[in-house]
Structures are given as C-alpha cells and as structure tokens.
C-alpha cells in the first residue's frame, strides 16, 4: 500500500508550481480578476503547451489520458496560486464529452480542446440552484434533427470564454446534453458577479436558441454527467488542499515574524493552536482528497462515496482554515491588500462548486441509511 503521490506525480506537481511561479504571481492574479473573463490567452497557451489542459483527455483524442490522482496533483498546485481562468470548467466539460459515448462528437471536438483551440464548459444549474441533475428542468425540444431551447441557466462557469457550451436539460422525460456555440442566435450571456472574481460565473438566457448536436440522452447522459462531475469534484478537492496549504504556510510565516508585546505572536499558545488546527484540517483533507482521487482513478466501487466524503470534508475544512488564517493574521488579514482574501474567496466558491458539505452529507446519508 502506498498512500502518497508517486515520484512522477510529485514532479508533475512541482512543474505546475514552477510554471505558475513564473507566469501567475499575485500581481497577475489581481490583474486578471479585474478583467471581464479572468481568462488570459497567454497563460492558457502556456498551460496547453505543458500538456495540462489535455491531462485527462483520452489518448485517441490527442490527450494524455492521465488519471484523477495526476489531476489532483495538478489542481493542488493551481489552488496554491488561486490560478484564474477556465481550467476547471474546461476539464469538467471535456470529461463529459469523453464519457458521453458520442464518438463522432468527441472526435470532432476533443482534439481542439486538447490543443487549447477550443474551450468548453457545462451549463447545469437553474433557478433551483441544485447540483442534483434530477432537478434539471430546462426544456429542450427536437425540431427536425436540430434542438431548440428556451429558458435560463445560472452559475455557469467561464461561459464568456468557452467556444462551446454543453447545456443540460430535459428532452421529453429524458435528461439530455446538447452543445451550443457561444455566439448562437437566441443566447444571451450576462455576468453573475460573485465574491471569487478569479473565476467568472454567468447567467445564460436562451430564447429559441438552436443546437445541431445532441451530445447524449437518457441513461447515457446521466452516466456521463455523473462520471464527469465526479472527476471534477475530486479536482476541486485537490484545489482546496492547495488553498489550505497556502493559508498554513502564510499564517505560520506571519506568526514567526509579527511581534506584539515584545515577542513574535507565534510564541503565544492561542496563535499556535490556530496554526495547529489549520494543519489538522489540511492533513485530514489531504487524506480524503488523495483517497478519493485514487478511488476515482481505478473506478473503485466506493468511488462515489469517497468523492462525497472528500468534497464534504474539504469544503468545511477549507472554510474553517480560512477563518483561522484571517484570525491569526489580525487586521492585515482582513484587508484587500493582503493576498489571504484571494484564497478565502476561492475556498468559498469551491465549497459551493459541485455541492457543499450539506449536499454531500445528504448523499452519504442515503448510502449509509437507506
């Protein structure tokens, strides 16, 4: 039994950190979060050149076909920089296409995603704001081989930079996924301004917009969405571990240098215990995230449960770590100037993304009790 990242996985993680150190420092992050999309074409090209955009895309579609553990190694590094932009939504959507069973569409689109030419995203949430696909109600109607849709999708990540949007809705009684171009007639995209401005959310209004592509329908759509969301969920857990690691490092460093009453504040037990608590949450969350990544990577029968355990734990832990980090920093930790709030806000948006702890506890309760 081996419960750590392998040597190649550690090297992969180090190379992401090294790259982001050079191309995505906090000055860059702050610059991008003031833009409309938080997307930077040059940064994306760099991520693509390194192969990270294609990390989990199947080899037959020109990806690297690496697993969930490799993905978590990468997102952990990205989380420790609050890397802005569409990496997560793009990874989620690419996996949805790969798992859809629609070979023609995958062959058509994924090579372009792998080489960074095409960016994709998923539109799942509606007014109910539920992450449960069963709650999806947006009506899709078939109209002589094309698909017409009217209604709203909310909280859609990076819709303004994705060339293709995978819209989840209902075709008759079936769950269905269709693909719509960002510039399609009858589609209006408006920003939903949120506290984490390093990753932008949008409201999509469809007014008879037309798609030529049914990506998947019925069982096939449900299963593809399930697999893709599960992979993206563990990727978010990896990010949260990276976020917590940064908060720990910054807080310990500050506690070693900031002086009050003639001593560094890290010599006081009240502050020491905050730091120890952060480590406690971080390492427990790391165990859960790595385990879930491994379970998903081998398609273990317990993978669904492991993903829910990890997301529930990491979501609560990262929020609490942020609270402790700000508290230990005192007033400076509460300012716009200090970088802590970038991580605090990312922890919040990631807590919500793909379901918070309450949502996943509901799922776990069903597994344990029903």
């Amino acid at each position, binding site marked *: 039994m081996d*419960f750590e990242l392998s040597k190649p996985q550690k090297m992969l993680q180090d190379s992401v950190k090294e790259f982001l150190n050079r191309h995505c420092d906090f000055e860059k992050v702050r610059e991008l979060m003031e833009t409309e999309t938080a997307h930077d074409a040059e940064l994306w090209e760099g991520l693509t050149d390194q192969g990270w955009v294609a990390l989990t895309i199947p080899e037959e579609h020109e990806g690297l076909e690496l697993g969930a553990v490799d993905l978590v190694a990468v997102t952990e590094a990205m989380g420790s920089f609050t890397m802005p932009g569409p990496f997560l939504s793009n990874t989620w959507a690419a996996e949805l296409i790969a798992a859809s069973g629609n070979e023609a569409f995958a062959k058509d689109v994924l090579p372009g995603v792998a080489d960074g030419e095409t960016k994709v995203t998923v539109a799942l949430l509606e007014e109910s704001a539920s992450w449960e696909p069963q709650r999806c109600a947006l009506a899709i109607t078939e109209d002589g081989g094309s698909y017409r849709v009217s209604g709203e999708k909310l909280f859609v990540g990076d819709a303004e930079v994705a060339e293709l949007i995978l819209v989840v809705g209902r075709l008759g009684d079936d769950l269905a996924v269709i693909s719509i171009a960002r510039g399609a007639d009858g589609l209006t995209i408006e920003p939903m301004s949120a506290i984490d401005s390093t990753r932008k959310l949008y409201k999509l209004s469809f007014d008879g917009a037309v798609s030529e592509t049914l990506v998947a329908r019925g069982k096939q759509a449900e299963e593809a969405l399930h697999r893709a969301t599960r992979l993206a969920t563990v990727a978010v857990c990896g990010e949260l571990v990276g976020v917590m690691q940064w908060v720990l490092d910054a807080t310990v460093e500050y506690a070693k240098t900031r002086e009050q009453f003639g001593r560094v504040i890290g010599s006081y037990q009240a502050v020491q215990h905050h730091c120890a608590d952060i480590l406690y949450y971080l390492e427990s969350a790391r165990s859960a995230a790595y385990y879930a990544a491994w379970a998903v990577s081998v398609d273990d029968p317990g993978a669904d449960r492991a993903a829910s355990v990890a997301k529930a734990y990491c979501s609560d832990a990262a929020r609490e770590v942020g609270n402790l980090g700000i508290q230990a920093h005192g007033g400076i930790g509460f300012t716009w100037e200090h970088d802590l709030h970038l991580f605090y806000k990312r922890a919040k948006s990631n807590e919500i993304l793909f379901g918070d702890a309450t949502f996943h*506890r509901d799922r776990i309760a069903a597994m344990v009790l029903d």
Partner: protein
Amino acid sequence: MDLTPSPQEEAYRNEARTWLEANVPKPYEGDKSISDAGYVEYLRDWQRAQAENGWLGITWPKEYGGQGLGPTEQSIYNEEEAKLESPYLMGQVGVSLIGPTIAMMGTPEQKEAYLSKLLLGEEIWVQGFSEPNAGSDLGSLACRAVRDGDHFIVNGQKTWTSYAQVADWIFLLVRTNPDATKYKGITCLLVDMKSEGVSVRPLRMMSGDSVFNEVFFSDVKVPVENVLGEIDGGWKVGITALMHERMNLGGSITVELAHFLAKVVELARQRGLTDDPIVRQKLAQASLELEVFQMTSARAMSAVGKGEAPGPEGSILKLFWSNYNQWLVQTAQEIAGPYGQLAPEKFGSLSYRYLRARGNSIEAGTSEVLKNTIAARVLGLPKSY
C-alpha cells in the same frame, strides 16, 4: 499512489482472520471489572493464547519472541481482531510501549529476564509516569530515588496508573539528580510491584470505574541493575516509550469506532429517526469523518511502512480521535433522547461511554499539549514554555 493491498498483505489478513475466528473466546459472563479475579484470569488466558501462536509482539524482533514484521501487519491483525470484538489485551501497555522500549534500550540480562514473560502475560507491566504535580509537565516529576550502595531507595507517588491493581512490574520514572536541570536528572527504574513499601489505591472515575490508580512508594529498595538505559538518562527512555504509544493508534481504534457508529445508526432506527433530516446530516458527518480518520491512519501507516519517520499524522490522529469520539457519543446521546441518561442497560453502555469520553482529550497528551507540540515540532514556531 496505490491502495490495493499486496498479495502478501491479503494472505496475512486471511491467516489472522482464520486464527481469530477459531480462537477468540466467548464474551465474559459476569462483571467485566478488573476487581473480578475470574475476569483477570480470562484476560490473561486470551493474552497467552495470542502470544503462543505468534499474534502478539508482531513488530518485535524475533529473538525476543516477536515476529519481526512491520506496522502494516500489526495494523492488519488489530483490524481483524477488532472486527470480532475480541477481549481487551490486559498487557497492552507492556506489549506496545514498555516491551519495545526494553528491547531497544535494555541490557541483555533485562531482555532475558522480562520480555518473554511480558509477552505471554505472565507478568503485567504498567507505566509509572504521571504524578499529582507532573501531568502535562511530566519533566517536573518529583518521585525521588536515592542511591544506597547497590540499590536505589524510592519515595514518592505516581498517579493515573492504569491496571496497577493487577500489575507485577512498573516502568517508573524517578528523579535521581535534583540538582540537574529538570530533564537531565530523571532515571527509569523497573520496579517489582511486590517490593516492600509499594501500595496501590484505585481512583474512582466519574464514569464509575476504577481502572486508574494512585501508586505510593515508601522506602522501596530497587537494585541498581534495574535501571533501564542510563542513570539520569531516563527522559530519553520515557520519550521513546511515548513514541510507541502514538504509533499504536489506528488499526483497532478505527474498527472499534466503526462498531460503535453501527450501534448509533441502529439506535436511530429503533427510535424512528432515520428520516429526520438533522439526524441524517449528523450520521453522515459521523460516517464521513470516520472514513477521513481511517484514511489518515492508512497514510501514516504507509509512511512508516516505507521507513519514513512518523509524520505529523501521529499527533493529528490522536487529536482527531478524541474530538471524534467525544462528538459521536454526544450525538448518540441526542439520538437516544431521555434514554441516553439511563445507567447501562437500555442501550448498551452509552452513558458510560459518554462519561468516559471526557478523558479522551486529556489522557496520553492533552489536546492543548499536542497542539503545542505540533506548533513547535512540525511548524517550527517558538516553544511557549
């Protein structure tokens, strides 16, 4: 990362399970109290059976009756044993803390004299560390030993000594040099509990039981050859023993918690609460935190198995376990409602567990001291004392 058990691990698990299924004794009928001679005998028999068949001292070197295997095998055996809810190992402190420390630091004569009997449960060993004025600050201990020719004369008191009432030997930290700075004047003595001048007084805890004791020493003569390690070098011996204590977490503890959680879920069913959304959320939290605990235990085991020094996981596991057990039993109490307050019978020993759990964040290092240790040793913050 590869969490698939190896064929060797699977084979060892099967072997352990087969032996345990054939040999774990029926639950003891009667009061499971340490003052019941029949129960003590029952526990001794179980220890002997395990030792004679190679299931105790799994990580001990072979020359002292161990199996020379790693922590992974120990953890596998602990898990399988706990699954069958086997009886408690009365010589636990000896087998997991004191024996390994004697094996590491003892003279050839000491190893010869003590280790085999310790493993077989012929002699029960207990730990004499804490004193009324030396709890978290163990280094300030005052129990005094003065050299008199070939002997030390011991005077003073120890407390919180588990199972002292059935012990044959005590692994005792005493102050031999009051002039040295506090950690440098301590010696570890191996003391025969039958020596003249040793007396034991059980402490009754708020849970009603009396596992812990006070032990008094009045002019007790201890031969100089019973010093373990160096004279005035006892702090190192004590720390070595405590490190073995942390290592021992995990394995059987996770299985024990899983048994208890299953009982809490069953209790919720009996009380018709499994559709209550608040109870569902709490049971899900209980279930997921237990899984996180299991994973962190497995991670710690994997690091130790690769020959790495135990990482921060050790202290974190102790903190996690005590937080978790206390929270879970409180949740169980809420689920039990008014029944939760009843002494023993109605829902097993819930009220006992509720009271006993208060000790979890105090025994084997208070949560506060563990956090101080993490801050100083893992995070590199300045020591606060």
